[in-house]
């Protein structure tokens, strides 16, 4: 991955971590339940990714801000309340913005709350880092999650519906390939991406070992 060097290397790495090296779906295998459930079209994937990112940002911000105030013993309960509140806010907002979008995503918006990526990031990162670092990391994680969902969703939509963003690709005689629309298709496509990412990762590791760490990542 081309990595333009900026003045703030810490922040850039913090941002990049979520997109590639610690991609929540492809590398850390977190948040798979919503990732598999809604990723049957590109639009659904994007909307789910963005909504999750918003919840992640909001929850991370608050948890990082109050990380020294919330006692360790009740932190998980506090995180869950905070996350659930943001999910509810997103739920109402989407409902108010567009009934159509809400009907398409309705049940899945509430499922953001069970996304272990969000609780995981709150527990592993937001509760231990400054607000600024946390937010940069959360943006990266959110982008990584959205990207992963989009990659899975695009393939499933193209193979399942024969469309991309609703635009038909294969003409009117395309027969819906139901397995890719249904949950098994999510597992199949996700596993293919995992194989690809693992292969790339291995190749890069080998190259990095051969060149004695010429690559920064």
């Amino acid at each position: 991955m081309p990595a333009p060097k900026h003045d703030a290397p810490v922040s850039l790495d913090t941002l990049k971590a979520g997109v590639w090296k610690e991609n929540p779906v492809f590398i850390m295998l977190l948040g798979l339940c919503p990732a598999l459930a809604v990723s049957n079209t590109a639009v659904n994937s994007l909307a789910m990714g963005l909504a999750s990112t918003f919840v992640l940002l909001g929850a991370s911000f608050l948890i990082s801000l109050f990380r020294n105030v919330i006692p360790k013993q009740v932190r998980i309960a506090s995180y869950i309340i905070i996350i659930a509140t943001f999910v509810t806010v997103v739920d109402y907002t989407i409902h108010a913005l567009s009934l159509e979008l809400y009907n398409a995503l309705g049940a899945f918006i509430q499922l953001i709350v069970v996304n272990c990526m969000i609780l995981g990031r709150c527990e592993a990162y937001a509760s231990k880092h400054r607000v600024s670092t946390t937010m940069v990391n959360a943006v990266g994680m959110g982008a990584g999650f959205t990207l992963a969902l989009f990659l899975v969703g695009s393939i499933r939509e193209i193979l399942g519906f024969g469309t991309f963003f609703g635009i038909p690709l294969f003409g009117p005689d395309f027969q819906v390939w139901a397995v890719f629309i249904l949950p098994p298709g999510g597992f199949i496509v996700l596993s293919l991406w995992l194989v690809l990412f693992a292969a790339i990762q291995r190749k890069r590791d080998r190259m990095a070992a051969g060149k004695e760490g010429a690559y920064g990542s």
Partner: protein
Amino acid sequence: MSVEPTSHTPPMPSSGRLILTLAIIAMLSGFTVVLVYQVTLDPIARNHREALEKAIFEVLPGATARVNYRLDDGGLRPVSDRDLDEANMFAGYDKEGRLVGVAFEAAARGYADIIRVLYGYSPERECVIGYTVLQSAETPGLGDKIETDPNFLANFDGLDMRLNVEQTGLKHDIEAVKPGAKAEPWQIEGIAGATVSSVAVARALRENANRMLPLLIRHLDELKKNPSPTSFRRMEGEAPAEPDAYTDCLTPCSRLGRTLALHSLETVVGIVEGEASAEPDEAKGEIV
């Protein structure tokens, strides 16, 4: 909050502090949720009203005005737009003020969730004259054909809904049959690959028609001579009745409760309470 940052040091904070922290967080959360609920209440209600209005005119071709009614054993009662949730029947009138038909909302459990449909009934022809899906979470590509499949939609043009002689129910119950097996005007030809969804639609119509049409017959004359259906807002200030069983008006607390319950499902396996235990079981297959 002026508390010492003792959280990272080993000694256990007092229970009072733990309770206080959680209480404050919960209070702030509750405040936020109620605030958002209040702000979004009107836009959400407006969205629903617009969607419903569009659907009503869609299932009652030729209608240009509507009046909302609550029809139950207690009789027929007009409902204002403000209390739209209480209405379970919508009468459509054309420009001359003649009754075009009546739209009913029917619901039944489908494959994924409750399917809510709106159908238009013509008392004159004693059959269905329009059909549309208000809400469904059926599987994309299979179950959602109940909204899009032209062959399936054709079922509802003239679907027979005659009453029996005693006027207590349908003469022939609406039923779903296998694709290609439709022989009678009261049968609905199902969709291959979406049996559960098609059967659910048939059940929704059957149950609703059996309950509502006998009631409707008794009040038909009242509906027909409705004086000025063009102004629906004149009925504001009607006495409220108990809410409709199918209305999906969740309070902010129950919504938060549901999200929390969902969370506990994932994180604290075993400690599941409240609405989570009422989650539907979706183990059945959907293939013919």
